[in-house]
């Protein structure tokens, strides 16, 4: 993994969390991080730091700043609290983990299809849970669909020996039940 590749990854993340912000605000953050990454790589190379170490240092800076990035976006954006944007950001944030892990270790090897299916699964589950949380008692359709997806994730996860998928299914079912119980209690 070269520092330039890691810098590209950071630049992509910046474009994700500045998406749909007012263009001057987004462009300022994008340009500022681009300059920072360039300076970081140039400085470390001038001091003889190995490329792998530079790449790890850039990844660590990105990871340490993730919470602040999301919080800054929330404060800056007029639309940041729209559920779809929040869910998309949360999904992107989760998908960054395997993406970063792939750059660090060979044990994680995701293809494009893996990212697309995981993104659809996470985003879809997020939207379903949101609708369930906002729904009224008796609105069982969303709960039933979420539970069915959870069960399917556990079944497929067990068949493919994918503990992450099974964990996702389990958490989705628990989340669905918890939201259904809360909704039922509120309607009493």
């Amino acid at each position, binding site marked *: 993994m070269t520092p330039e590749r890691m810098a590209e990854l950071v630049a992509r993340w910046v474009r994700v969390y500045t998406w749909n912000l007012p263009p001057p605000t987004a462009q300022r953050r994008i340009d500022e991080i681009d*300059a920072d990454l360039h300076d*970081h790589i140039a400085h470390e190379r001038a001091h003889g730091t190995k490329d792998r170490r530079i790449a790890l240092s850039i990844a660590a800076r990105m990871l340490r700043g993730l*919470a602040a990035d999301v919080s800054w976006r929330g404060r800056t954006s007029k639309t940041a609290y729209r559920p779809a944007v929040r869910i998309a950001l949360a999904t992107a944030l989760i998908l960054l983990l395997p993406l970063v892990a792939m750059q660090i270790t060979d044990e994680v090897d995701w293809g494009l299809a893996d990212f697309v299916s995981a993104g659809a699964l996470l985003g879809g589950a997020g939207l379903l849970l949101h609708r369930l949380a906002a729904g009224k008692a008796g609105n069982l359709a969303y709960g039933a669909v979420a539970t069915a997806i959870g069960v399917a994730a556990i079944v497929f996860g067990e068949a493919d020996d994918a503990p992450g998928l099974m964990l996702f299914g389990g958490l989705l079912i628990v989340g669905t039940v918890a939201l259904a119980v809360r909704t039922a209690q509120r309607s009493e």
Partner: protein
Amino acid sequence: MPRRKPGTLLPLETEILGVALSMRRSGEATFHGFGLAQLMREQSGSRSLTGHGTLYKALGRLEEFGLLTSRWEDAAAAEGRPRRRLYELTGQGAGLAEQALAGKADKAIGPSSRVASEPT
């Protein structure tokens, strides 16, 4: 990051002002993000640089408070590399940094410095 009390600076923000003041005293009126992160690492003796998001969020807050100003570097000065955003202490920022440093030296100040006014 610790939760902010209204009208106060976070420790990171105070640290940024302190480093900016020390740079100003050494004749460098302006500074940029990575240079600041690098100096903060050196001065704190830490092994790691401040996260991108943490650093630029703090710089943005200090600018909102009127403690820093910023502008883009001239394209000619950039010499082909991406242009840096250059920050500079305002008079109010320098005053607050002086207070914070003096307080630190006397060990008579709390963890947060007061800010004159909270932006809306």
